[in-house]
């Protein structure tokens, strides 16, 4: 018998009597102001939230914020004049030199400050991790209160997706918080008003 069948047989023999799933597994969070809560949560995890009216203002803010930074990458067509780094690489290792990546994501979660980013907008999964600094753009009206609402939106997760909440961090050395472990050293979220 294969290990698979042996394991399954032993599970069948040893598992407890069937019980149903709990009736309630989702909960509501009623924040007075979802966007305010989102900002607050992200401020606590070292991430600035900047509202921009349109793509023009986004470009302007990006230029201000990352003045002098070379090796810029983006997945947003409107920024293609500013971000001169080509994402048209066949090997993700070539992204190693990216200093700032501005990428589009789908939505954010107010309760924990996480932003959902996935294959839908990313030509290379490693981009948000390998870049030294990360900026994420989400529509201003795409905020949900908590993770239950988030999963209600995520009917299809495609091939890969990730909730990202702030810059990479570690506290493995005497519990001292250090920002910038392996992934991005800084994170900014742009809330884009226009569709």
């Amino acid at each position, binding site marked *: 018998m294969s290990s698979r069948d042996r394991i399954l047989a032993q*599970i069948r023999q040893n598992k407890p009597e069937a019980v149903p799933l709990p009736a309630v597994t989702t909960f509501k969070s009623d924040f007075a102001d979802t966007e305010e809560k989102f900002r607050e949560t992200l401020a606590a995890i070292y991430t600035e939230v900047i509202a921009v009216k349109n793509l023009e203002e986004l470009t302007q803010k990006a230029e201000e914020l990352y003045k002098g930074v070379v090796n810029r990458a983006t997945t947003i067509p409107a920024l293609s004049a500013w971000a001169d780094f080509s994402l048209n690489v066949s090997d993700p*290792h070539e992204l190693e030199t990216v200093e700032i990546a501005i990428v589009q994501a789908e939505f954010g979660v107010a309760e*924990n400050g*996480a932003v959902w980013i996935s294959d839908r907008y990313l030509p290379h*999964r490693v981009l948000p991790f390998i870049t030294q600094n990360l900026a994420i753009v989400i529509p201003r009206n795409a905020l949900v209160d908590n*993770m239950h609402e988030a999963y209600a939106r995520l009917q299809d997760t495609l091939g890969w997706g990730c*909730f990202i909440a702030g810059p990479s*961090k570690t506290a493995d050395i005497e*519990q001292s918080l*250090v920002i910038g472990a392996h992934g991005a050293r800084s994170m900014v979220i742009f809330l884009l008003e226009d569709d």
Partner: protein
Amino acid sequence: MSKTVMEHAEASEVFNRDEPYVNWHDETLWFVRQKRDKSSRQLPEWEQLREAASGIKHYVLSHLDELLISFEQKAKENGVQVHWAANAAEHNEIVLGLLKKHRIDKMVKSKSMLTEECHMNEFLHKNGIEVIDTDLGERIVQLRNEPPSHIVLPAIHLKKKDIGDLFHEHLGTEAGATDPQYLTEAARQHLRDKFLTRRAALTGVNFAVAETGGFVVSTNEGNADMGAHLADIHIACMGFEKIIPKQEHLGVFLRLLARSATGQPITTYSSHFKKPREGQEMHIIIVDNGRSTQLGRKDFRNSLKCIRCGACMNTCPVYRRSGGHSYHNAVAGPIGSILAPNLDMTKNADLPFASTLCGSCSNVCPVKIDIHDQLYKWRQVLAKEGHVHKSKEIGIRAMSAVLAQPRFYQWSGRLGRTVMRAMPFVVNNALNPWYKQRDMPEPPKESFRDWYVRNRKN
């Protein structure tokens, strides 16, 4: 099986030699426990979430076979290759086989307690494979040739100076440097080079979803993603109890996990892997290694609900004052002490006794495992099966003889009080294990019973 390691009590005695260090260890973990409290209290539905999580996991235990089959089928449809391993040896062989097939002799690994449980690094090393742990804490203990001392905070037992010295020796940092920012930067550069040059990456699995065939890996550092997205082959290893029915249930578990572990609202990265990226191979190894046996132990099966947050360790007064290594098991602390005897009763018979049974572990457990009850039950099983130390057994027998006879109990109490008052050196000496790290109390003049009888007469 012969004893090769120190028992918990002996090992913690060594740990306790440096009192300021033990106090620091205790306070550091308590600080994490307090962050958990603060964070959990921000959710009014916290208790309902725990209830839901426990209920979902109970459903999982009672439908494990069906859920695993569904997961396997979906994963295969997604283009992921699924392997099954009955035990640690088989798991290690599968990993080695995959690496050999691709002629890879260097691999990066993100945190996986399962591979620690299987002693995979050691096995691969013997077979000529270099494994680099990429979680900073794990890299630190790996450079020290130590196992992790905590499932979430692997290097929690070390001081800045220890790490500074270690990095000076291995990574060429300045001698005497202890700044965490500086040391982390050195590790970042050192590990970035590994990420960029390794063709294989291994990760653990926090949750596997039966409905989608996908799995979630949570890290704060981003090391799992750095490894997996750059490597040609991604191997994910999971104990079979990591399965949950539906993707929507992740809402419950992700809200509980990081809050219970470190007090964060969510880990920085919660990566959902479903399909390999183009040109990449993705493998999942589903591991039993004693879990199906534990499933059959009615009193202990709830331990399989564990989501590895480490909350029970941070709160445990024994763990905080004895350190993770005293438990001689990949998973230390209260939950580890329930899981370990299932793997080997002889080798781990001491662990269920490394507890005050105060119940704090059960109170903080996000999936409501009855940890302290199970520790108490293991003691009985182990005693019955003859795995308990002779000295402990004699003590227990003597105690039960005393407690079974009220008159004898009263007489021995009186005798004890008299002796302790007249000749305190009889109990205040190194031969008495109760005298370790504490002073014996001043014996009262009369027992509560005497006082009660006297006062009731009026």
